[in-house]
């Protein structure tokens, strides 16, 4: 694919190499292996808000990029630690 998010290589039981591109879901950080010539709907989709590739599980969910989730988690953690709760 164009601009893949990763590359995976393995072997089958006969020792024949298997290669595929991957992409990482921008919402949940899941690595999706791309089967060549598969139907695009089987991969997931493109979020029309953040315009990034997302996995099948995130297609029907609101746009909340993983980076944003990290920021929320870390801000909460910092706040609770500053209060002495954690």
């Amino acid at each position, binding site marked *: 694919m164009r601009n*893949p998010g990763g590359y995976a290589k393995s*072997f089958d039981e006969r020792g024949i190499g298997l290669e595929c591109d991957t992409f*990482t879901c921008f919402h949940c950080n899941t690595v999706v292996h791309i089967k060549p010539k598969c139907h695009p709907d089987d991969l997931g989709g493109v979020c029309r808000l953040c315009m990034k590739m997302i996995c099948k599980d995130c297609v029907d969910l609101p746009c909340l990029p993983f980076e944003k989730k990290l920021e929320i988690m870390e801000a909460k*953690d910092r706040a*609770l630690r500053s209060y002495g709760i954690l």
Partner: protein
Amino acid sequence: MANYGVTNSSQFGAQAATGSTYSALIAVAASTAGAGGYNAGSGVTYSAFRRGKLYDLLVGTNGTPNDNAMEWIIHRVTVGATLAWVGSVSSVSSNFALDQADVNFGAFCTVNASGNSSTVFTLVQQPPWYVGVNQRASYRWVAAPGSEIVWPAVSSATGGNGLALGVRSAAYTLTATGTIMFTEQ
């Protein structure tokens, strides 16, 4: 940002046998003073949580070749304050940076951890990486910049502060090998 590589080599303790439930080969988590947070040479000690980005995975087996199904997974886990592990990274006193001129990582890292019980790791959310391969096969995944698997810079009390590389197999009962490469922000 420095890059680091960690393996579950038997140098870090006995490799655990593969079972029908997931066992953690390598686990990394954000830490203020993890096992690898102190560099004896530079004396640098990290005091703040740091995000980690896992960008390279290499897994395989080192037992007698056979045709069995292996399931490999990267869990999101909450790494508890008290862990049971077969070997400790810090016991080797090595700098795991790929460039030895860099300081060691600040993350907490445990290798060949014994089991995956709730007292060691608590699974959180869906796994970001999962693959099934033949026992004979090795598998490698490399992320393009911006597509890494990320763990947050939070304490274990918040939860989901780490990643664990796990393996299971219904038929294969010998040891498995794993290598991860990551960077810290």
